[in-house]
């Protein structure tokens, strides 16, 4: 195998490969990245057996072939090399020679044969369906932050992806708050059983996708496959029973507050400075068109901030984990939002003032 390519084109892809690779020990095939040169393109593959990544970039191939090298060191080398073209030449004795053109630099990396590299899972072409990149990125942003990191509740460690009659739904919860979004794509969505998708792959999509054009998705029993912009990512799914989320979505709320999203985020940022960091409990007091956020009084002190809002209900007070409040607010999209509630100990709904496909549910904390 022998090919030449521009350093900057390669470094981006190799750094993504390195993010996927979880094994960091040299001399293990799972620490290696696969390089395959053929037909004027270089295919790069990396996997940790759960998440796999594959991408293709145009290069100048003089001898087709494939091999694998220790990704961590390859990335290190690329980072230190000066800009310009680099020649990769596979020698005998399992050596990959890395040589910037017109420079007296010479790296020789040990290789492991590409036949040792694990076969990546693939989906049947007919299982794929198209989806707008913009939509999928929005769906991920609205939900992924809400997944649980409690490993004892592994079935909440991912985003629930469900095909409904007229579209797809994503839901994430950690048992105390829940985020929901539904999209109705114009084109056909293949049928699939609802699955739990680990956040890793979703965060990768969010990071790598351009936001333009479409993305192809395929869901099988055990894996999810995503193709976009010359890249293919797949991930094993989380097995287990996602909780019956429909049950906890309030169908009706008695009261509604309208408030400026930015003003609320800023106030939360300030008041949370003096909130006890273990429980993160913040109080919200409503009187007429005023909303008072306050911390509990502690040895350190107390914080209080009043912001104006639109509220016509009776005076009310509730307590919340301020992160459960701030995180949805950050991803919501409109200048004004609605906070809907019924009682201080029942789930609260956060919605945009515009009709949107998403909402967020938060279970308040006990006041005492």
């Amino acid at each position, binding site marked *: 195998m022998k090919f030449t390519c521009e350093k900057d084109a390669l470094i981006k892809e190799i750094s993504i490969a390195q993010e996927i690779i979880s094994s960091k020990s040299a001399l293990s095939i799972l620490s290696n990245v696969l390089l395959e040169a053929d037909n004027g393109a270089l295919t790069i593959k990396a996997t940790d057996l759960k998440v796999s990544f594959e991408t293709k970039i145009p290069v100048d191939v003089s001898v087709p072939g494939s091999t694998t090298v220790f990704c961590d060191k390859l990335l290190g080398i690329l980072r230190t090399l000066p800009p310009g073209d680099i020649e990769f030449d596979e020698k005998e004795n399992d050596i990959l020679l890395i040589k910037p053109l017109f420079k007296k630099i010479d790296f020789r990396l040990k290789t492991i044969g590409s036949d040792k590299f694990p076969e990546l899972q693939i989906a049947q072409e007919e299982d794929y369906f198209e989806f707008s990149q913009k939509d999928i990125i929005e769906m991920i942003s609205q939900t992924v932050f809400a997944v*649980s*990191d*409690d*490993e*004892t*509740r592994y079935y909440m460690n991912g985003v629930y992806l469900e095909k409904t009659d007229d579209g797809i739904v994503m839901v994430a*919860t*950690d*048992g*105390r*708050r*829940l985020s929901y979004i539904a999209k109705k794509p114009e084109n056909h969505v293949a049928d699939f059983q609802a699955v739990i998708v680990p956040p890793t792959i979703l965060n990768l999509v969010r990071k790598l996708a351009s936001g333009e054009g479409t993305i192809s998705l395929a869901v099988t029993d055990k894996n999810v496959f995503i193709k976009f912009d010359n890249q293919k990512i797949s991930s094993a799914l989380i097995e287990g029973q996602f*909780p*019956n989320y429909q*049950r*906890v979505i309030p169908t009706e709320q008695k009261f509604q507050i309208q408030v400026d999203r930015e003003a609320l985020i800023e106030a939360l940022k300030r008041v949370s400075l003096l909130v*006890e960091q273990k*429980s993160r*409990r913040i109080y919200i007091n409503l009187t007429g068109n005023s909303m008072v956020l306050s911390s509990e009084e502690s040895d350190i002190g107390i914080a209080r901030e009043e912001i104006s809002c639109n509220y016509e209900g009776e005076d009310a007070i509730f*307590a919340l*984990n301020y992160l459960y409040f701030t995180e949805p607010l950050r991803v919501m999209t409109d200048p004004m939002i609605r906070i809907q509630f019924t009682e201080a*100990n029942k*789930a609260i709904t956060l919605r945009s003032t515009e009709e949107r496909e998403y909402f967020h*549910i938060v*279970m*308040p*904390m*006990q006041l005492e």
Partner: protein
Amino acid sequence: MSNPPVFFHVDLDAFYASVEQMDNPELRGRPVVVGARPGGRGVVSACSYEARVFGIRSAMPISEAWRRCPGAVFLPVRMGRYTEVSRKVMELLREFSPLVRPISIDEASLDMTGTSRLFGPPVEAAALLKTRIRDRAGVSSSVGIAPNRFLAKMASDFRKPDGLHQVDPGSEEAFIDAVGLTKLWGVGARTLARLRELGLDGTDRIRRLDLKSLQSRMGQAGGAFLYKAVRGMDPGLYPETARSHSISAETTFGSDTADPELIHLALLDLAHHVMHRLFDEGGSSRTVTVKLRYGDFTTISCRSTQGRPLSSAEELHRVGTELLAAKWDRSQPLRLVGIGFEDVRGEEEPVQPELFPSEFDRKGIVEKTVFSLRKKNPRGAPVKASLLGRRPRGSEED
């Protein structure tokens, strides 16, 4: 003008044994040993001062206690009763100061700063407190008075039993020297041996070293601890922020066993006991600990922290079983198993309710009901079928 700091440390004397002697006047003046059944292989949980004369001590194998004093009265641990008396004492302490920090079932630390207008000088307040504990809870106590919690704790131990000792401001170092290195709180056998090796055999000698040289010899934390301790400064006996403690129970098998069913049942029994104590004090915890001891006394402890507080004994048992499964080498029979909670938080901790009630939440509600029934009527309350016919066993609190 701000008041000088005053702390009380209250320690109930030979607590379990005293409660037994209070409940049964015939036992007064006699050696009483509370703990495992003689003939079995458990240990002494507590013993009366009359029993200590024979050299019997807490944590001693019960067989050894029996050998030293066969005439002693051997009684099983009645944790529920001790908890009841303990609660009475803690309530009473709160009449003296709002800042009561229970340390264990029979110990508490009180911040009495600025209370002299109400109760007079500290010594008078402490005497009144001791009288009230005796009158209302029926047990004797020892009280230490000092400018910090660390000294107060050691002062409570200074004239035990029925003691009262005050460390006056200015006399801290003299008091530490009087207590001596071997009885200095936080100095264990290993530290002591290391200090002896270095020729540091007295608190006064340690005081001659500056912080740096002490730390170079005894390590960062160890050096800092000793530096403060020998000067009578609180080396951080009870971290000011942490109000947590642990609750645990353990059982020693009649003979070493590798029978999974027996061990499983023992753990279930212990889990119910521990959970009930947690319910009783209204606390909550996310951290489960399991202790196992092999026949050769090799002891293993392990812990697992859950994403949310545990809500039922069944859940505690499930987590405990998983921990045990991970740590226990099945080819080796066990002598003892224990289970408990660490980092138990009080009921004043903010509660974050769940959107989805878990199966264990529902079980927890049932268990709480059964528990309150049992409290009202110890004999008539429902018992888990698999635990029917099991004899109540000893338990201890850290």
